[in-house]
């Protein structure tokens, strides 16, 4: 039982750290801001949560497990919000998209004064 617990802890900690490393590599290699946000908000969160689950198993202590779960919940709540808020600020301040981008549906449709999306293009409405 002890051996199973230790193995589980090590697998969780090692896998989590690999996910975090993957997030850093993605942050370095992705072409523009909006693609860089994917690894930093998803892979890094998953890696940290795996490490924290490993901690909760390792210590076998109620108070520490509650703390680990608290951090997990908080990361799951805040990571998407933070990524969305930064993507919005970056888009509005005109950060260039990567050359490979196929479609930008938001271009010229966001009013900075009123903070509203304008209507879809006219021909789409007539159909």
């Amino acid at each position, binding site marked *: 039982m002890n051996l199973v617990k230790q193995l589980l802890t090590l697998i969780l900690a090692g896998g989590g750290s690999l996910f975090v490393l993957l997030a850093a590599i993605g942050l370095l290699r992705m072409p523009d801001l909006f693609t860089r946000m994917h690894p930093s908000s998803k892979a890094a969160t998953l890696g940290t949560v795996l490490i924290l689950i490993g901690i909760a198993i390792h210590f076998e202590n109620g108070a520490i497990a509650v*703390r680990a779960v608290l951090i997990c919940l908080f990361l799951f709540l805040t990571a998407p919000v933070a990524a969305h808020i930064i993507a919005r600020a970056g888009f509005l301040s005109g950060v260039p998209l990567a050359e490979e981008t196929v479609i930008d549906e938001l271009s010229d449709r966001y009013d900075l004064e009123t903070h509203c999306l304008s209507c879809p293009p006219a021909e789409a409405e007539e159909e």
Partner: protein
Amino acid sequence: MTEHINLFLEIVLGVLALAAVGGFVRLLRGPSLPDRVVAFDLLATVGVGISAVYAMAYNQPVFLDVAVVLALISFVGTVAFARYIEERLKG
């Protein structure tokens, strides 16, 4: 057995430090301010992971409190930066 576990956890700490180096490179190079904020966010997440693994490797659960505070602070910092970038546009 315990020595092997400690060695493995130190390797894990090294991998996390490598991830932190990657975040720092993006923080220095990042062409725009939002890029740097994203890198900063990743650094905070890596910091949570490092303090958690440190607590496990050296059997000091106090470091989990550091992780809690770091997770709280980084979100507030990101939101503040995003507000700043948006308000700067209005001039």
